[in-house]
C-alpha cells in the first residue's frame, strides 16, 4: 500500500554504493513531502529530527536579523541534502529554512535513524561518511563565499 521509496533513493547519488539492506532501512524512515512557495520548513531552535533530500524546487537557508528581516545565506536545490543538525545534540535547527519555490522533497526521520545507527554501526558509518562529504562541500563553498571573490580587491 505504501509505495516504497527504495527505488527513488537508489537513484540518488547520495545513496550510491550503499548496500541494499541499508537503503531499505533508511527507506523505512523516509516519506515524500511537499512545501508550497514561501512555506516554512523549519525554524531556528526547532527540534531537528529530520533531514531532507530535495527532489525539486529551491529552499532558502535563512537567518532572522533584527531590523534587517530574513537574510538568505544559501539556497539548496534539487538533488541536494538539507540538514545535519539531527546528527548531534542538542538536535536543534541552527537556521530557518523556507521554500522559495514549490518544493518536493524526501524527509527522513532523524530520531528513527539515530536509533538504527546506534544498533547497526555499519549503517552509521555509511551515513556519517556521506554526511561528512556534504558538510565538507558546504564548508568549502562557504569559505569561497566568505572570500568575497568578486570584490574589486580580488
Amino acid at each position, binding site marked *: 500500500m505504501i509505495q516504497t521509496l527504495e527505488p527513488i533513493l537508489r537513484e540518488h547519488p547520495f545513496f550510491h554504493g550503499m548496500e541494499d539492506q541499508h537503503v531499505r532501512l533508511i527507506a523505512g524512515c523516509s516519506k515524500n513531502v511537499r512545501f508550497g512557495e514561501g512555506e516554512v520548513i523549519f525554524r531556528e531552535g526547532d527540534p531537528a529530527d529530520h533531514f531532507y533530500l530535495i527532489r525539486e524546487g529551491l529552499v532558502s537557508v535563512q537567518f532572522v536579523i533584527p531590523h534587517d528581516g530574513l537574510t*538568505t545565506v*544559501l539556497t539548496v536545490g534539487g538533488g541536494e541534502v538539507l540538514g545535519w543538525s539531527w546528527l548531534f545534540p542538542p538536535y536543534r535547527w541552527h537556521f530557518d529554512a523556507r521554500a*522559495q519555490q514549490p518544493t518536493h522533497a524526501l524527509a527522513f526521520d532523524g530520531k528513527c535513524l539515530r536509533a538504527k545507527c546506534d544498533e547497526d554501526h555499519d549503517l552509521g558509518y555509511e551515513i556519517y561518511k556521506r554526511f561528512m562529504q556534504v558538510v565538507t562541500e558546504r564548508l*568549502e*563553498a562557504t569559505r569561497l*563565499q566568505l572570500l568575497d*571573490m*568578486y570584490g574589486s580587491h*580580488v
Partner: protein
Amino acid sequence: MAAMFEQTEVVTAGLVPDPMLPVPYRIQRVKQETDDTFTLEILPEDSGKGFSFAPGQFNMLYVFGVGEVPISISSDPTNLPLLKHTTRVVGTVTKAMRKLKRGEIMGIRGPFGSHWPVEEAIGRDVVIVAGGIGLAPLRPALYRLMAEREKFRKIVLLYGTRTPEEMLYRHELEQWRGKFDLEIQVTVDRAASTWRGNVGVVTTMIPRAPFDPSNTLAMICGPEVMMRFTVMEILKRGVAAERTYLSAERNMKCGIGFCGHCQYGPTFVCKDGPVFAFPRIATILGKSEI
C-alpha cells in the same frame, strides 16, 4: 544560415596593420552597468579601419594623454564594426575612461590574443561558467553560439556574482533565456530578502548542471580563485581537461609580446592567452606569485 564560421575573417597577428599604433575610434555610448562597471560602445573613425575579432580576444584601449589598458572585447562578433568593452573602474586609465562622453575619441590597438574555441564545441554540450565581470569576455562566445544554435547540443550558462545588483547584462540574459534554447542559472554570494533566486557560490551549481561531461566543452572566466575552484568541479564532473578553457589576466604594457609584463610561467598572456586550455596552465594555476 550559411556557414558563418567560414565567412567571418578573424584579423590575427600579422594582419593587424601596425600593432603598435592606435586606431581612432569614436564613442557612441557609455553605459553604466553596475556601481563600478561600465560599457563603452565604439565605432572606428575611418569606417575602413574596422576589424573583426574572435570571442575571447582583447584590445588595448588608449585614453588620449592618459594611458592604455587591455580590455576584453564583449560585443557581438557578427555585428561589426561596432565594438563594446565592459570594464570596472580600477585605476587612472579606467577612471579617465569612465569620464569620456559620446562623440569623444580614443585609440584602439588589436585584436590580440587567443580565443574561445567555439568551433571545437560543435556537436557538443557547452557549459559556460562566469563569475562577476567574467561574463564580459564570454559574451561574444555566447553570441557566436546563439548565431548557429543548431550546431551545438545543450548550452548551459552558470553565472555567479556578489549581489543581484552586480549582475551584468541582466536584461539580455532574460532575453536569451526566452529566445534561445539556453539553460541559464544565476546565483549570488549574498542577497537582500527580495531576491528569490539561488544564493551560494557558482561552483555549487556545477554538480547538478544539465550537461553530459563525456561530450562537453567548458569555458570559464572570472576571478582567478573562482576559476580554480570551478575547474576543480568541472573536472570532478568528468569533463576532459583538454576541453576545459579559462581566460587569464596579467599586467600588460604592449599586448604583443614585447614588453614582458604579462608573463605567466612560460606563457605570455597576450599571445598564448588570454584563453588557455587548462592543461597548458595546470601546473601554475593557483601557484603563489608566479
